[in-house]
């Protein structure tokens, strides 16, 4: 209700038309506060569209929530029938009647039992209404369907003028009234009541499109105030009416700095060590069997462990199935269901229309007031509707959850292999964080990888991690990154082993190379030694030759000296030596 008041004060001038809140989910939002106070409102629609229920809920909620007693003047159902019919919505009409909060007057007119003999008026009806109003001090009145008078009495002109007087009278009494009427051909009501009730006209409608039943509500007219002009889908379920307001016009969700754990410590690490932002929407996309639900279960498990309420909407698996499957990875969801922290809603997507789903989810969420909502998978809706509609619906749901500060985790099933950007419905721009679960197929096995594609406002890891589903939950491992690319699973193990053996081989290689080099060095050293030896011996030889030559020269000198001495020639006249020698030679 607080949200509603906020809406009203924002959009209405201070001296705006006074309104009476209906207390009906969503209706006060689309009417910006409720029905015009002290004036009649016309509710029209075909048979079975919920006019009576709307009227009754208006009265019951008025009596229970706003301390405004009410009167129901029923022309179609007896008090017993009415009370039995709305008991299915959880309203205890009998108790309200006994407590003086509600009066029901059943008016029965059977034409065949009536003889008309002259002019008449409806003063008795006025008296009865006035009497009922007085008996409980009513502020609200429902006339369900007053048109029954037209079939019960002839003299339409009398009836018309009397009805005009009645509506005038209701206004004078300052009663907030709902008048229901059957929809007519080409006009809002069969008997043209819209002519007399011009303050507020609401049209209820139900139709079947593609075998799917959808109820819709439209405010045709609301004099003196702004109102939603769209067709709003609505739902009648075990708690009454719920009207789904369309997306709020402005983006002004309050934003939280608080973080919530993903339930997987290593995944928290990838998101700046803290997990998702409270009230954000998280998308987990991946192909079948990549572990989306397991990730969601982790999130829910952690939240329930903190004592937060969660709702898990499952569109593919039943409650028992999910509980069993999650037990296999070590998550016990059953304990949370038993403690009332986790509500499980398994809904078959094809049972209802898209909008009905949305309205129903709205109603469930409003009632349970969870902090966390999981929708698994949101793509399941595609079965029953077009992509655009589904996208719209998810957008509206995300919007609603954000406005309620509920952290949402949506999974989407993708079937496109090559593109990681494929989020199933292109809803990625609507979400705050997007985790992608990938499957990597290599060497005869499938492995899972996870990475954070985006996380608004979070310094997140850009790494792909290996995503392991073990008997005690999800585990993230650093993947192998090497020359061969990213490897996971046994390929990772294999590659790691391979690397190890390669390293060993290389080591051996180096060792043998070193050995070889040593050997070569030794050989070269040996060669050097040999060459040195050779050099030495050559040097020795040269010296020997030099010495030999010296020796020979000395010998020659000595010989010459000796010869000269022997021939008694002047030894000092060395220049003669030659001629003398020649002479000597010539003599020989």
């Amino acid at each position, binding site marked *: 209700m607080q949200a509603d008041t906020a809406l009203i004060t924002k959009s209405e001038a201070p001296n705006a038309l006074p309104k009476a809140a209906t207390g009906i989910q969503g209706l006060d939002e689309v009417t910006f506060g409720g029905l015009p106070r002290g004036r009649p409102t016309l509710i029209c629609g075909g048979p079975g569209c919920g006019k009576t229920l709307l009227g009754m809920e208006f009265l019951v909620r008025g009596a229970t929530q706003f301390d405004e007693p009410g009167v129901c003047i029923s022309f179609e159902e007896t008090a017993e029938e009415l009370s039995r019919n709305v008991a299915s919505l959880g309203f205890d009409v009998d108790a309200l009647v006994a407590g003086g909060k509600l009066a029901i007057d059943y008016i029965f007119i059977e034409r065949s039992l009536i003889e*008309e003999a002259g002019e008449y008026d409806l003063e*008795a009806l006025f008296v009865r209404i006035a009497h009922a109003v007085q008996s409980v001090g009513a502020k609200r009145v429902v006339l369900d369907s007053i048109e029954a008078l037209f079939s019960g009495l002839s003299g339409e002109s009398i009836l018309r003028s009397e009805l005009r007087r009645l509506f005038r009278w209701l206004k004078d009494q300052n009663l907030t009234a709902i008048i229901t009427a059957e929809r007519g051909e080409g006009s809002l009501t069969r008997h043209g009541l819209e002519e007399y009730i011009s303050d507020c006209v609401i049209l209820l409608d139900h139709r079947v499109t593609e075998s799917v039943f959808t109820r819709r509500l439209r405010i045709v007219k609301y004099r003196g105030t702004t109102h939603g002009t769209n067709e709003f889908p609505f739902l009648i379920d075990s708690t009454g009416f719920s009207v789904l307001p369309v997306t709020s016009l402005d983006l002004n969700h309050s934003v939280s700095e608080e973080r919530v754990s993903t339930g997987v410590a290593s995944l928290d690490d990838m998101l700046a060590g803290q997990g998702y932002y409270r009230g954000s929407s998280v998308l987990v996309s991946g192909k079948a069997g990549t572990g989306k639900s397991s990730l969601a279960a982790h999130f829910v498990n952690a939240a329930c462990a903190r004592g937060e309420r969660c709702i898990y909407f499952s569109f593919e698996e039943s409650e028992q199935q999910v509980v069993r499957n999650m037990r296999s990875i070590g998550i016990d969801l059953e304990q949370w269901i038993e403690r009332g922290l986790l509500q499980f809603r398994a809904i078959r997507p094809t049972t209802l229309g898209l909008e009905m789903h949305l309205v129903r989810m709205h109603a469930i969420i409003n009632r349970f007031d969870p902090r966390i909502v999981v929708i698994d998978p949101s793509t399941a809706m595609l079965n029953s509707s077009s992509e655009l509609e589904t996208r719209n619906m998810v957008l509206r749901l995300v919007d609603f959850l954000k406005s309620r500060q509920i952290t949402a985790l949506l999974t989407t099933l993708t079937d496109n292999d090559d593109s990681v950007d494929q989020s199933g419905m292109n809803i990625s721009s609507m979400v705050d964080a997007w985790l992608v679960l990938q499957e990597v197929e290599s060497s005869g096995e499938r492995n899972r990888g996870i990475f954070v594609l985006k996380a608004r406002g979070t310094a997140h890891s850009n790494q792909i991690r290996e995503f392991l589903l073990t008997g005690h939950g999800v585990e993230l491992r650093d993947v192998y990154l090497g020359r061969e690319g990213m490897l996971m699973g046994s390929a990772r193990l294999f590659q790691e082993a391979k690397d190890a053996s390669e390293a060993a081989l290389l080591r051996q290689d180096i060792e043998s190379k070193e050995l070889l080099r040593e050997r070569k060095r030794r050989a070269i050293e040996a060669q050097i030694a040999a060459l040195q030896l050779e050099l030495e011996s050559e040097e020795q030889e040269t010296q020997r030759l030099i010495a030999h030559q010296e020796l020979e020269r000395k010998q020659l000198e000595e010989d010459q000296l000796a010869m000269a001495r022997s021939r008694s020639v002047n030894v000092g006249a060395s220049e003669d030596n030659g001629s003398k020698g020649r002479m000597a030679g010539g003599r020989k």
Partner: protein
Amino acid sequence: MQPDKLSSETNAYESALSEQPTAEDYVLRLFVTGSTPRSARAIQNLRAICDEQLSGHYDLEIVDIYQHPEQAKPEQVVVMPTLIKSLPLPVRRIIGDLSNQQRLLAGLDIVHRSAGHPEPGRGR
């Protein structure tokens, strides 16, 4: 057999005294709203017919629902004025200011609807 005869005579006498309606008598209730012209007209019209056709064999109660609004609900009175004939059976409701005498007589089963002219007496 004398006591029987006596008692039946006494009964007849007593019933006549207390004006308890018998099966042959009319029990009528006319619901009006105060002394509005239409109500006044209805009372006048009804009284005239009753005096003329039923001469004493009727029991007429006039209920002003302004005074007794709670009486309107159990009798399912919606329009004003409403005349309810609860005896003789069948129960009939006649609405309006009763200015249409023929319809009033038909409603009271004093004349058959098919009969063109009003028949005196209280046969049906």
